[in-house]
């Protein structure tokens, strides 16, 4: 594989992440290994060792230091990349806020895994969604190609002077991080033409330079600008929606791959029932939609690509359709004590108020801790929704309908 021409490689999701950092020419990578992220850092380390990637690869002693390193390096105006998973993300949580609060355009990939105890290393988005309110843009990548492409798009977005916020790109631990698929890696020149280098004199709002000393991050008294800084971050993350669409359109034009927007809908135009979810299962569910359509059932699906900013307007536009009779929103994460048990299905309450009250709404949870979710399981969720709408009950299935939430293949009760 050379840098001069485009090639299709059979690689894992983690290798796609490492290639994203290499083609984006990240200047600084801080590294601490954690399953299932480890091979991202192993691959970058091999790139650096063989001279194929010019970057400062800094091995540190913990994930807290990983993200602290990102703060320091990014403040100098460097393009910064790292990756982690599960417990590692939780350990770096304090520094996650330092990055967003300092408005630093760091990009971090998360090979999502279940949170311990009990120990679990397989796909579960409870790790990334625990960072829901950290001020980072949060995106889910549903294919291997999307992991690679999203890193390029994320730097473009994060470094836009109208944004200046960090981006998390989450994908499934093992289900994506360790499976192998064909990924198109464009030439270095094609990426350079799309993604310009960082500004020579640092970010517009903040640059660490010994020649020009500044004070940053000091104490703000209650009547000073703390509240205004917080509001500005909220305003910016909402305001990023049209910029995300610009970045995607620009990428589509340059590379021919279309990521649609903050959400991607599939066969929703005349759909009576729509399933909403995130990640690779949002791609796989298209096979369930096709099967059910061939049986005459009018179903469709929506993949939420960006969870922060939350794509409320885009969802209302599709879900407000006159044809629609029922929605099922499925989480692969658990939000204990929330209205539904799932992060996204709970968030939907602010969308439901704008939709007809005759709609049947079904929150659901599937695949926690990497439990396999088959296309057949996905069909069963559609069938349960149809059942609930038509009969006002869910007949006996392998799923459990408890206090208004459907738990797919739950082995209790």
């Amino acid at each position: 594989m050379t840098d001069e021409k485009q090639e299709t490689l059979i690689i894992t999701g983690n290798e796609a992440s490492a290639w994203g950092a290499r083609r984006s020419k990240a200047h600084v990578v801080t590294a601490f290994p954690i399953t299932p992220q480890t091979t991202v850092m192993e691959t970058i380390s091999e790139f650096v060792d063989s001279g194929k990637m010019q970057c400062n690869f800094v091995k540190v002693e913990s994930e807290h230091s990983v993200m602290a390193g990102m703060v320091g390096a990014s403040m100098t105006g460097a393009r910064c990349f790292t990756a982690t998973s599960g417990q590692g993300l939780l350990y770096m949580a304090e520094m996650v806020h330092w990055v967003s609060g300092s408005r630093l355009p760091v990009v971090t990939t998360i090979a999502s895994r279940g949170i311990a105890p009990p120990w679990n290393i397989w796909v579960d988005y409870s790790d990334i969604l625990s960072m829901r309110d950290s001020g980072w843009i949060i995106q889910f990548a549903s294919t291997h190609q999307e992991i690679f492409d999203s890193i390029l798009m994320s730097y473009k977005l994060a470094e836009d002077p109208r944004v200046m916020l960090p981006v998390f790109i989450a994908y499934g631990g093992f289900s994506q991080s360790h499976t192998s698929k064909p990924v198109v890696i464009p030439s270095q020149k094609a990426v350079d033409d799309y993604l310009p280098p960082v500004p020579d004199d640092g970010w517009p709002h903040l640059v660490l330079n010994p020649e020009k000393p500044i004070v940053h991050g000091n104490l703000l008294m209650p009547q000073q600008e703390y509240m205004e800084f917080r509001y500005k971050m909220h305003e910016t993350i909402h305001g990023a929606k049209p910029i995300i669409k610009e970045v995607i359109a620009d990428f589509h034009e340059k590379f021919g791959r279309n990521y649609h927007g903050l959400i991607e809908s599939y066969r929703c135009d005349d759909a009576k029932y729509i399933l909403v979810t995130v990640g690779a299962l949002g791609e796989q569910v298209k096979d369930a939609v096709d099967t059910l359509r061939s049986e005459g059932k009018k179903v469709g699906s929506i993949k939420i690509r960006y969870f922060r900013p939350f794509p409320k307007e885009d969802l209302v536009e599709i879900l407000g359709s006159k044809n629609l009779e029922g929605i099922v929103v499925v989480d692969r994460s658990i939000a204990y004590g929330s209205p539904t048990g799932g992060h996204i299905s709970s968030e939907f309450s602010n969308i439901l108020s704008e939709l007809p009250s005759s709609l049947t709404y079904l929150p659901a949870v599937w695949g926690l801790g990497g439990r396999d979710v088959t296309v057949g399981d996905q069909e069963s969720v559609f069938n349960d929704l149809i059942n609930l709408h038509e009969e006002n009950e869910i007949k006996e299935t392998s799923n459990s309908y408890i206090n208004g939430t459907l738990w797919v293949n739950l082995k209790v009760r």
Partner: protein
Amino acid sequence: MTSKELYEITVLSRGGQGGILGNKLLGKIAFVDGFKDIIAIPIIGAERRGAPIRAYLRISEQKLRRIDAVKEPDYYLILDETLLSYDYILSEIKDTTVIINTENGCSYKFPPGVIAYEVPATRIAIDLDLEVAGQPIVNVAMIGAFAKATGLIKLESIKKVVVDYFGAKGELNYEASAKAFELTREVKQDE
């Protein structure tokens, strides 16, 4: 080559035999041979040498969206025949084709509807000194057996991919697959 659009494969091996890598290499070879999409799915936990290991592969003429486990494979690639001594493994094998690494004839019986091929992959690896830490590596030999039994991939594609992947050891691996291709034979099951 038949007109089927999707082939699903389950690779059963023991830790250290190269089953996970072999599964991925088989995917690469199928892609080089012109299949439009592949996904190699290793089932990974806290494995150790000798433990039963499972990996799945889908190779397709269409874009693949699925990431779930393969439940009813078209082909089983069995790198160690003693894995069939586990009832849970032997009992899942029906209406499929199995390709088994065995030197003296497989001693396990399959139900009617199962087509079985045998190949002495361990013997081939030992004869070629294809060993890592004293253990014969049979993964690429089994890919040669797969080529013979299924006709889905070509020997020259195996050569291209393994030479690219293993470098100096690639030729030896290719030799193992070519030998396996030659020695793989269908075994008639007693009806």
